[in-house]
């Protein structure tokens, strides 16, 4: 039987049998991504769920080359691969990082900033599922405020706000950075296509469903991802050379609680004594949206120049 998404994916670049959990976003993400980038792409994966999903030795789920590398340095390893490809006349070969939020927001952050600053011709994909899920749900600096993890159990739930990676990465003046949701597949695919056409350091952050980590029903992964966008917990926008554009405006935005209540990691927020926290999350979400609107407004006054990386030399 053919999968239902055949109308979007012309040729599968993955083998079946991904080792992802039920309802995980990685396999869906990788299917669409690889189908657009084609078999020549070289993927670099730091320690992450994806490193496992794409296959322990001697397996390779991808019909492409995959380099599994050390946790802190996927952007650096990709820099070496990129340099080698360029030297060998393969400038058109996409070099793509597939990382989680831990490998991006935390341990790989310096290498990420370094590669972004150098303008390496690399596409960086971060599947942000908001914690170290591969090691069993530990708090990362991407973990949402209020979430429970094994290192912030019960009463000690995360009491700080996640790092604004998109803001930080945009400040690197990249040709392209965008947020994506697996509930908005066309938007995701367009962004991959757009990133593929560009040169230089590009980053896509995908909202990553994770039933075991988020304590959700695997059958609700896409629904929750959609609600996250509708509630503006995970707004869809793109940034070209610091010029912002919001890609989706809900006709009727929903309260954040509508999305949070489907996730067991936020269960405690719905106890009467934590009412204020739910309000704080709503306010923080509204503020972030307002900030995006303002950034977009400022951006309208600027022309987004044709994006092209100026090569040294």
């Amino acid at each position: 039987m053919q999968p239902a998404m055949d109308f979007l994916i012309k040729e599968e670049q993955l083998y079946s049998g991904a080792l992802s959990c039920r309802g995980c976003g990685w396999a869906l993400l990788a299917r669409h991504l690889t189908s657009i980038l084609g078999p020549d792409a070289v993927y670099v994966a730091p320690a992450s769920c994806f490193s496992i999903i794409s296959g322990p030795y001697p397996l390779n789920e991808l019909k492409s080359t995959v380099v599994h590398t050390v946790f802190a340095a996927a952007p650096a390893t990709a820099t070496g691969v990129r340099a080698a490809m360029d030297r060998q006349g393969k400038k058109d070969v996409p070099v793509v990082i597939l990382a989680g939020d831990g490998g991006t927001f935390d341990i790989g952050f310096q290498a990420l900033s370094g590669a972004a600053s150098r303008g390496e011709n690399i596409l960086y994909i971060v599947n942000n599922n908001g914690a170290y899920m591969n090691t069993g749900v530990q708090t990362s600096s991407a973990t949402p405020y209020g979430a429970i993890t094994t290192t912030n159990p019960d009463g000690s739930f995360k009491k700080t706000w996640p790092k604004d990676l998109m803001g930080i990465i945009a400040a690197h003046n990249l040709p392209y950075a965008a947020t994506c949701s697996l509930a908005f597949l066309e938007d995701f695919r367009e962004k991959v296509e757009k990133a593929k056409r560009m040169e230089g350091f590009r980053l896509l952050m995908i909202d990553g469903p994770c039933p075991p980590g988020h304590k959700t029903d695997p059958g609700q992964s896409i629904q929750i991802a959609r609600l996250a966008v509708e509630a503006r917990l995970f707004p869809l926008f793109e940034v070209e050379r610091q010029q912002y554009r919001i890609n989706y405006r809900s006709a009727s935005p929903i309260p954040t609680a509508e999305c949070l209540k489907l996730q067991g990691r936020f269960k405690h927020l719905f106890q009467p004594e934590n009412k204020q926290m739910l309000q704080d999350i709503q306010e923080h979400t509204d503020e972030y949206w307002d900030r995006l609107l303002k950034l977009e407004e400022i951006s309208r006054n600027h022309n987004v120049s044709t994006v092209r990386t100026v090569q040294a030399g």
Partner: protein
Amino acid sequence: MNKVSIATEAPPKAKTSLFPRHRELILKGNYAAAEAAKLCRVGFVPAYPITPQTSIVERIAEMTAKGEMGATYINMDSEHSVFAAAMGAAIAGERVFTATAGQGLFYAHEVLHAIAHFRLPVVMCNVGRPSIPWNIWSDQSDSLSQRDTGWIQLYGESSQEVLDSLIQAYMLAERVHIPVMVVLDAFYQSHTSENTWVPDQDLVDEFLPPPAFQTGEATAANQHLAFGGLIPPEHYFKFNYSFWKAIQEVEEEAETVAEAFGKQFGRTYHNVEAINIGPQTKVVLVTMSSIATTARGVVQHHPEVGLLKLRLFRPFPSRAILDAFAQLSPDTRIACIERNFLGDREGGVMQEMRRALYGNPFPMRDFYAGLGGKDVPPSTIEKIIHLAKEGKEDVYWVDFE
């Protein structure tokens, strides 16, 4: 793009040359290292500055900027990233060079393991310096503490030896698929100018074949392979077993490469150098790097004292040492000189020597000297010889009071 015009150098004068097809230059150890990277036609150099290595990558940056060197040179964000980038380029088939020192090497530790266990023929230069208390001067604690990462380690005594060892290192690394670290002493070598015979490019080209990708062979990147995925227990040991087999070939392979190098370039090297070691010897000094130079002078005044210079340190050249010591009388004192402190009673040299000499009767003495760049003059070597003969202790700190 700016075109850089390079003045054509006048052909060397037709004087009687000790080494034909060489130029005699005055080079600091660091510049000799950079020169070697150029002569080996490395394709990729990820770099990060750290004293006292910095002038190696500065010189390479200069040579690549001027078009004298065809490598891709990239300023990375840390040593961890330097070695991770080296790993990526080496997986994709490039000949890679980089250099670091002390903290940089410590910081790269994780990736050193990865490069070795990926069996990548990366070659690097380490200019030895220690950790805390903050110190930039000569010390081998950094490289000796990385002895278990799987890298082959060669220690150079002069600018000439650094240059020559790096050329040999690429041949060795690419034959056995194990990375090589060439170590030189901070300042005593890195920043000291010495007469150095620099071989002509074509002489090196004849010796060292270009890496596979340059000859048009397929690179791994279009074969859809996976590198470095999680290895279950039933497969994991196979990789270590194959590494274990390969590392045991290194001692002999290093000698083979050194012999071929001698034929091509006229300079002879061995894994160890034994001077004045025989039945008459009462004390053998065991040294590495620039302390060996000082010891050479001192033993000239002591017919009863021999010198064993370790050039190959990893894998430890046990066979060569046993051969060198074959004629020693059982009461010969073995005096190890340590420019390192590894957090144990004995230093790195003595630890390894004990291992190599297990079952042999020689009394062994260990001498900490020259840590953190402290000078080891002939008078210190004299004290070591005296203590080796007369002292009752097995470990001494010399000239530290």
